[in-house]
């Protein structure tokens, strides 16, 4: 119990990494340190508007203060990894879209690139550019979804509608490109499934001109809003070291001041050809994460702009056999998904089906930081922090 008592303040810097030791968290017996009727154990979820799906968080509260949390996951478990072992490589590609269904394009990119790497083939440049454009658009869409729901969690209703309105434009492009809006299955192993439609570049450019003022609109609503600042500043602080220790990646890591982005660190697709920056935060609090994601949207727009302007002509499919039989071996490939490092570990036994496929989902890993971030905070902050981690339960549970 002493570990909790020391966490009196919201000042997360006081909390050493040692507080990661969660053996103290005994949810069964109430805290007997002092007889106090304020001590509660509350189930947040699995049916709860703010847990973004079917996440169940068991909260141990002292009054309103969070003493500890325990996440119960698995309500959305579909056995994606097991399914992979019974599908051919090609057949499995649509399944990955169902993990992070808010960023299906990114999921597909990671999978396709992993298999390509395993087979040692390369997608042609045009395909690479298309991939970049779609993936970055998907990143914007994902961040929009996050912004809307996060703001709604904190109590600002309006941004949700704004972001959904604008996200629609991206989904329209997807729809036009591949016929699907959400689970696109846009890429294939070795390239892209479809050639771009006529007017694709124009649509994308239109979107960019349409969207630039919209980000300003979001920021006008929130960035300097006093209540927004009070609710997000110094809430859910996590240090860069803690992030690294927990394996947290993505905007959460960057908001803690660690400049780590796989697009720069281990460039894949055509990212090495584009000029963009990695926005980072300083305090690692919810507000910084908000700012980082807003900046990332702008950076994504930059990338898309460059990519659309420089998109080369050529084939969209590499030299891939009809039946995909990667050589015996194993591969780990990861990309910078909107939520963090999305990795695929594939073991091939030389057959048409993966022997084992393991996904490193960013949401799942990032969710670990929840306990560290919310200890000592209030219940309302748990909502804000869950929102700011940006989890998708489809990806957490797989």
């Amino acid at each position: 119990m002493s570990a909790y008592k020391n966490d009196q303040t919201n000042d997360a810097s006081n909390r050493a990494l040692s507080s990661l030791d969660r053996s103290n968290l005994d949810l069964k017996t109430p805290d007997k340190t002092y007889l106090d009727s304020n001590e509660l154990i509350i189930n947040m979820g699995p049916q709860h508007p703010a847990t973004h799906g079917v996440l169940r968080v068991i909260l141990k509260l002292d009054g309103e203060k969070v003493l500890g949390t325990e996440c119960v996951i698995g309500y959305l478990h579909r056995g994606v990894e097991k399914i992979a072992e019974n599908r051919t490589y090609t057949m499995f590609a649509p399944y990955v879209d169902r993990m992070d269904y808010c960023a299906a394009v990114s999921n597909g990119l990671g999978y396709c690139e992993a298999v390509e790497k395993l087979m040692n083939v390369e997608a042609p440049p045009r395909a690479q550019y298309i991939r970049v454009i779609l993936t970055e658009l998907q990143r914007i869409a994902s961040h929009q979804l996050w912004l809307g729901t996060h703001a709604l969690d904190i109590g600002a209703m309006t941004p949700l509608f704004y972001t959904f309105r604008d996200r629609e434009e991206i989904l329209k492009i997807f729809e036009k490109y591949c016929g699907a809006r959400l689970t696109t299955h846009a890429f294939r192993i070795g390239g892209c499934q479809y050639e771009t439609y006529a007017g694709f570049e124009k649509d994308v450019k239109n979107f960019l001109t349409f969207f630039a003022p919209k980000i300003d609109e979001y920021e006008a609503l929130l960035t300097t809003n006093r209540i927004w600042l009070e609710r997000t500043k110094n809430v859910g602080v996590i240090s860069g070291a803690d992030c690294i220790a927990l394996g947290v990646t993505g905007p959460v890591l960057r908001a803690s001041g660690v400049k780590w982005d796989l697009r720069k660190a281990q460039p894949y697709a055509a990212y090495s050809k584009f000029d963009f920056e990695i926005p980072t935060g300083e305090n690692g609090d919810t507000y910084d994460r908000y700012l980082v994601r807003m900046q990332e949207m702008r950076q994504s727009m930059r990338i898309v702009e460059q990519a659309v302007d420089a998109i080369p002509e050529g084939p969209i499919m590499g030299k891939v056999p009809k039946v995909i039989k990667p050589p015996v071996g194993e591969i780990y490939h990861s990309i910078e998904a909107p939520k963090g490092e999305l990795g695929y570990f594939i073991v091939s036994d030389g057959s048409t089906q993966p022997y084992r496929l393991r996904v490193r989902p960013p949401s799942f890993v990032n969710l670990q930081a929840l306990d560290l971030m919310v200890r000592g905070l209030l219940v309302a902050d748990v909502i804000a922090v869950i929102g700011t981690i940006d989890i998708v339960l489809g990806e957490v549970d797989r």
Partner: protein
Amino acid sequence: MPNFIMSYLDSKEALTPGSAGSQFWALIYVLIIFAGVSVAVIAMNWIERKLLAHFQVRLGPMRVGPHGLLQPIADAVKLMIKEDIIPAEADQLVFWFAPMIGLLAAFTVYTVIPFGPSQAVSDMNIGILFMLGVSSLGVLGIVVAGWASNSHYPLIGALRSSAQMVSYEVAMGLAVVSAILMTSLNASGTGTLSMIGIVQAQQQQGVWFIFKFFPLGLIAFAIFAIAMVAETNRAPFDLAEAESELTAGYHTEYSGLRWSLFMLAEYAAMIAVSSIAVTLWLGGWMRPFPNLLHAPAWDFIFSLFPGLTFLALAAIALIGVARMPAHSFFRIQRIGLAVFAALLGFVALLLLVIAVAGRSADMSVAGRFNDGIDHVYWFVLKVAVFMYLFIWYRATWPRYRFDQLMKIGWKVMLPISLGVLIVTAIVGVIFS
């Protein structure tokens, strides 16, 4: 006409029925106010949904009636016929009447709200005290509802909202006191707690109290305006019913009619506190510049405003009719909207007729009726501004966290209101 009806109407003074001792008219007024407030609440429901939708780039209710005008009725019907679920583990009795407490408190305060110098149920000597006291009873309803549900979220929500309301009552009360202090700045040196008296004091002193001792009145008003949002558990202080945290706060377990009673109480309370703000700081029923523009001509011009407003509303409705797509699908809607516009136009006509008829006859029934309409119109207009603000807040701001809320209440608002009170007292002594 029986005497007990006419004697009130014939009396030469403009007295409230309560003050005049006319129980009949008091009853009539009570009925009118109850009906009016209920209608206003229902209308508010629609207005809020529409306004919020437009804030959020959507349309809001559009299907039930033209532009969803009949949506509140549909809602009401739905809520009334919905099953009234009482959880098995709940405290049946308390669960049953908890909403009533809130509703009772919210509606009782209307007995002293002065829609006009005589347009109130009663002019109580302790009017404002009564208002604060009774509105504070609303907390009981919330606490009891949360407790009776016998569930965690409602309990937390109830404790939160009651703590919040009790806390903000302090700042609110002090702000009110500073306004009451201003009423004593007259020749006799005695102030009043009477709501009508307060408005009359503003008239006598020739200034709305919001502008009195600038900026003291403004600060006090601002404190009240903030506190009243917290007091009614509205955004950004809607912690008790923060759906993202506590699903729905104290009324999580409620459904159907009983839930609608909470809604009714909430909106009624919103209107009530807005009324207090209007009465204390914004001159109550007074039209703009009653002392400067006091010529009969001005009276007449201002008395045309209610009619003209309804005329404008009718015009808006007609525009809506015109903009309806020319499709058979919209025919009924178009007809409905046109009828609505016609209704509004008729009301406007009636009001204009009354304004013209009551122009010269000061103490005639028509004249008094005209005056009454005038007063009620301005009062409602001012309250409507507040109601719009309530919606605007909700569309714009995120929600405060509970500790921040408490911090603002106790560490910011309370000291400021105390300071304002003290400074007002000193300034009042100096200038009186």
